[in-house]
């Protein structure tokens, strides 16, 4: 018996406190999700701020994606650039189950959910949680599991590869998924459409009741066997007619649980094993870490959460699930979040997800930005003052410089928006230019990303901001 097991036996905590510590955060996430759905969202909706609800949903879905990619690119240091493919796999799996499943159980593809997935706020005559919500939840989980399975299949052979080679394999996988969906028929089985010979060939059971050019009925869709579902997902035109289940409740719940799992991994022995692979693979393996197995494990967990995020994305209000949207561009958006936040930092990825999701919206509707340039100037003045005060106190000027930089950024963007408004230029179309500039600035000013490998509440991060300068420094 190892010394570790021996010591562990004597340090064992009680079952009850462990159970409480284990379950409490989950309950808290559930509570916050309910609060968001039943209080915050109605308040915002009543105030006419539906835009913010929509924004919040987008942000939280992006957050789940960024945090899941952090587990691969951040923790284990493997560079995957096909993360959107796992999202796509999860999205299409969930979409098939919800759409065709709804026909099976309810005879139509409308939202049948309870309060938790209702987006008509103020309605009270439905149950909190309906069976249709269970269908949606099951679809999300199924999407996550199928994506995780794909992660395993892709990861097992390819995670023996290093660096660029792995990146190319993941890129290839991403394109394969996109092209596979795009090359399907552009049809979704929908009521009222005509029966084609193709349908009768694919679904022989229809032959007894339907002939070519008959209208497709709800019963016919309900009777379509499971294995033809993936065939009729809309192909290049996108999967139209999906019910919108992705309410504030579901996104807060999933984002909260993703955060929780990510933090639990990072703060554990397994998390240190992941990070050790990123730091030095050879040393990690010499210390008994099965490097390949751990890389695959990180890849699978990340794919699982990306798949769930895909399911949420597919059922978001105003989204038509489309393979073109889940290609390389999407993968890159996620990578930008992870790199900006700091490779390995969960809170950094979360913050970057907020910024990267909001910025294009701000650029598209430049009024808010245009109005903010005076605040930016204020930030510049405040930052300059802080630098002076900190310097005279012999402390690190990092905090002052950060404020100064943020101020410059806001002022610059504000003035740009002001100009754009005047000359009617749509800045939103140039968002990739801004992201590219942001990445370049980041590589020069702060190559480790916003937070590096740490978290925002880590002592060292704040200590770094206000620390006394070392004696060797300029005073």
């Amino acid at each position, binding site marked *: 018996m190892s010394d570790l097991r021996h010591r*562990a036996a004597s340090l064992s*905590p009680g*079952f009850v406190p462990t159970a409480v510590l284990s379950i409490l955060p989950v309950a808290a996430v559930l509570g916050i999700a309910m609060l968001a759905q039943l209080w915050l969202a109605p308040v915002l909706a009543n105030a006419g701020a539906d835009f913010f609800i929509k924004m919040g949903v987008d942000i939280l879905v992006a957050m789940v994606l960024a945090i899941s990619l952090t587990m691969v690119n951040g923790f284990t240091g493997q560079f995957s650039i096909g993360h959107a493919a796992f999202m796509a796999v999860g999205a299409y799996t969930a979409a098939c189950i919800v759409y065709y499943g709804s026909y099976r159980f309810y005879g139509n593809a409308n939202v049948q959910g309870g309060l938790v997935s209702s987006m008509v706020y103020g309605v009270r005559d439905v149950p909190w949680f309906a069976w249709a919500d269970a269908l949606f939840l099951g679809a999300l989980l199924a999407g996550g599991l199928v994506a995780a399975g794909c992660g395993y299949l892709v990861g097992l052979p390819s995670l023996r590869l290093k660096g660029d080679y792995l990146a190319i394999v993941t890129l290839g996988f991403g394109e394969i998924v996109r092209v596979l969906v795009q090359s399907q028929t552009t049809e979704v089985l929908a009521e009222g459409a005509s029966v084609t010979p193709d349908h009768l060939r694919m679904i022989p059971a229809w032959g007894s009741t339907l002939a070519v050019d008959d209208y497709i009925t709800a019963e016919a869709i309900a009777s379509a066997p499971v294995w033809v579902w993936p065939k009729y997902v809309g192909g290049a035109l996108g999967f139209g007619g999906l019910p919108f289940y992705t309410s504030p409740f579901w996104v807060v719940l999933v984002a909260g649980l993703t955060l929780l799992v990510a933090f639990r991994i990072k703060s554990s022995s397994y998390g240190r094993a992941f990070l050790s692979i990123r*730091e030095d693979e050879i040393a990690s393996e010499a210390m008994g870490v099965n490097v390949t197995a751990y890389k695959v494990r990180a890849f699978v967990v990340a794919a699982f959460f990306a798949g769930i995020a895909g399911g949420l994305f597919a059922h978001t209000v105003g989204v038509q699930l489309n393979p073109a949207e889940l290609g390389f561009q999407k993968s890159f958006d996620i990578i930008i979040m992870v790199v900006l936040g700091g490779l390995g930092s969960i809170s950094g990825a979360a913050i970057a997800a907020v910024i990267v999701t909001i910025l294009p919206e701000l650029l598209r509707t430049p009024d808010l930005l245009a109005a903010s340039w005076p605040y930016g100037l204020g930030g510049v003045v405040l930052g300059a003052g802080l630098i002076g005060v900190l310097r005279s106190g012999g402390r690190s000027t990092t905090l002052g410089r950060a404020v100064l930089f943020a101020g410059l950024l806001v002022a610059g963007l504000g003035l740009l928006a002001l100009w754009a408004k005047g000359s009617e230029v749509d800045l939103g179309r140039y968002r990739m230019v801004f992201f590219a500039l942001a990445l370049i600035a980041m590589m020069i000013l702060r190559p480790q990303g916003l937070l590096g490998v740490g978290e925002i509440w880590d002592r060292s991060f704040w200590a770094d901001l206000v620390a006394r300068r070392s004696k060797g420094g300029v005073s």
Partner: protein
Amino acid sequence: MSERRAILEVVGVNKSFGGLKAVQDFNLTIREGDLQGLIGPNGAGKTTCFNLLTGVYTPDTGEVRVSGHRVEGARPWRIARLGVARTFQNIRLFGALSVLDNARLGCHLRVGHSFAGMVLRSVLHRSEERAIRDRAMDLLGVLGLADRAHEEAKSLPYGDQRKLEIARALATEPRVLLLDEPAAGMNPQEKVELRGLIHRIRERFKVAILLIEHDMGVVMNLCEHITVLNFGQTIAAGSPGVVQNDPRVIEAYLGTE
């Protein structure tokens, strides 16, 4: 005392890289409680031997046994689990992790809870995390690094980085510890301390030690048995006194007249 169990046995191991015969017919037996040295001029194949023992390289021919298990061709992590730990000549710490986390990582291979248990925060997970922290702090204490537990590993001075590598290796609960030039870059004072430290480690952790070292003062004073390599061949093996007076060793180090 006479029949101590063999932990690491190497029999007739050969390794070539292309036309270069890096190690030829290498034999070595390390028993419980041994403190052995492996020396030789630059490029003699010492580190290659370490890499053969720890699974970084696979021997072309020959046998390597750890506690009786054949391990030629086994992955390094598997050999580590059998109880062979090592340090590296060119330090390989996990630079961005804290000193404590480096030591804690060494404990990971003895962990008994599953990944799912970790995510669900099982009782075993929590007790083992406590034990890991406990063990890691003990080890840092033994090596005099406890005060620096929360610093980044890469910010440590060179000598402390070498000590941290030893702490991390000891955290894996090894039966044999392979030290690759532990005294490299140390000043004379530190070298004397290192000798005391290695003795203490052997007593306290009941671990056999094999060390590669260039510093003759350290090797001759410390080791009970020394193997000398030159151009991949074992040219002498025995107690420090025997090895020191072996003409082939003198020739390898000083050349012929």
